[in-house]
């Protein structure tokens, strides 16, 4: 458990969680890391801590550089428990002279932990703290993705410690972007953005505008999860700009669940119609695809087509799960439609269409409902629905 040097006198001293598979409903199939950064200067400073159960790993790594008791300052960029769950042990071990948090962070911290005796200093955007040969500037990033989030920027090292932004869940022994597979890295980043930040796209656009005005000189971005961007920080910045400005691909997503394969047959016919238009389509059966993987695909899709049979006058429960999750993430500027098989009452298509409208999805068709098993004509109608969706995707390009 050795520390990893990020820059001269700056070390990664976080923890690797190889085992986590479910992050409050987001599937983390390859684990994650909780990153902490140690800066050794006149004021030895620790940026962020780790989840409960990982304090030993953090302190062990700190020991590889310096006695933890010599840490003077603790900066907490975000109060969520994956970064503060170990804080009682860490504060006890290092007895910091000061703990820096944002104004909103102060409120969050107090609401989590007994902080009365802690030497907390609130900071706001633009505040600077000298560490000796270098300084830290703070940039509040409210609602990216909690009210308390902030960035810490060290201009002398061109280093941005970015809290949860620009991070991803991926447990690796490697610490840097140039040491891992580039396409897998971007896939983890897209999943993270889709599941954690998609709804804050308007905030991100404002943040990019503000960062542009600040004209920060950055050559390394160190997020609190995953690898550090030292070779190509521009790559993740460009991806975030694309995502938050909702530049969609010519792609459609057909998401469905099925009881006795009828809605599945309809889904495949819809997908075939979309493909006929030369539009890329992904067919995602909710029985085998996790909600967090579906929203990753939704991130760059232009169209969302939903299918569910009617069960007990409603929709299938996995579709209900997906809709609850997707609505909260506020996908915007999509087009869509719905379809489904039914036995006698057949409410599902209306419910799905209503859910799409709630998400402000532009409805391109009233949808197709078919009693029991679709026949040739029904499947042709589904294919035609797909054609219509495909045409709408192309027309919107």
């Amino acid at each position, binding site marked *: 458990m050795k520390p990893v040097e990020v820059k001269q006198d700056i070390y990664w001293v976080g923890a690797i969680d190889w085992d986590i598979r479910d992050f409050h409903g987001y599937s983390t199939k390859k684990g994650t890391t909780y990153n902490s950064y140690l800066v050794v200067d006149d004021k030895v400073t620790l940026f962020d801590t780790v989840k409960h159960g990982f304090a030993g790993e953090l302190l062990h790594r700190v020991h590889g550089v310096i006695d933890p008791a010599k840490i003077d300052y603790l900066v907490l960029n975000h109060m969520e428990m994956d970064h503060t769950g170990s804080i009682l042990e860490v504060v006890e071990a290092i007895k910091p002279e000061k703990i820096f948090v944002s104004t*909103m962070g102060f409120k969050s911290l107090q609401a989590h932990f007994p902080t009365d005796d802690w030497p907390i200093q609130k900071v706001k955007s633009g505040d600077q703290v000298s560490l000796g040969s270098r300084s830290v500037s703070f940039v*509040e990033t*409210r*609602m990216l993705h909690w*009210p308390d989030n902030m960035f810490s920027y060290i201009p002398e090292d061109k280093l941005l410690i970015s809290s949860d932004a620009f991070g991803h869940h991926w447990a690796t022994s490697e610490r840097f972007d140039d040491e891992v597979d580039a396409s897998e890295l971007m896939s983890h980043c897209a999943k993270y953005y889709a599941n954690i930040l998609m709804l*804050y796209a*308007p*905030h991100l656009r404002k943040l990019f505008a503000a960062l542009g005005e600040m004209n920060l000189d950055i050559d390394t971005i160190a997020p609190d999860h995953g690898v550090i961007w030292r070779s190509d920080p521009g790559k993740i910045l460009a991806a975030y700009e694309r995502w938050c400005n909702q530049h969609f691909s010519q792609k459609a997503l057909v998401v469905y669940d099925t009881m006795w394969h009828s809605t599945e047959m309809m889904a495949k016919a819809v997908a075939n119609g979309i493909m006929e238009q030369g539009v890329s389509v992904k067919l995602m059966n909710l029985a085998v695809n996790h909600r967090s993987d579906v929203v990753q695909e939704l991130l760059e899709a232009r169209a969302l087509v939903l299918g569910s049979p009617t069960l007990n006058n409603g929709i299938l429960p996995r579709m209900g799960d997906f809709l609850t999750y997707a609505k909260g993430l506020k996908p915007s500027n999509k087009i869509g439609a719905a379809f489904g098989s039914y036995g006698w009452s057949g409410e599902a298509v209306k419910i799905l269409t209503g859910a799409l409208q709630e998400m402000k999805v532009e409805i391109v068709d009233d949808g197709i409902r078919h009693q029991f098993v679709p026949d040739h004509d029904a499947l042709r109608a589904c294919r035609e629905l797909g054609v219509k969706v495909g045409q709408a995707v192309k027309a919107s390009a």
Partner: protein
Amino acid sequence: MKKYVCGVCGYTYDPAKGDSESDAPAGTAFEDLPDDWVCPVCGASKDEFEPED
């Protein structure tokens, strides 16, 4: 005077209470808050707010 709800975090601006963080005293209508006023919870700007139903 109407209450307004933040579309980002759900905070409700109640004119009867005002917003002590930005020195808007009790009785300040949402419309009379300065243009650069932001949600005290999440930092969203005024245009993110909708009147409460």
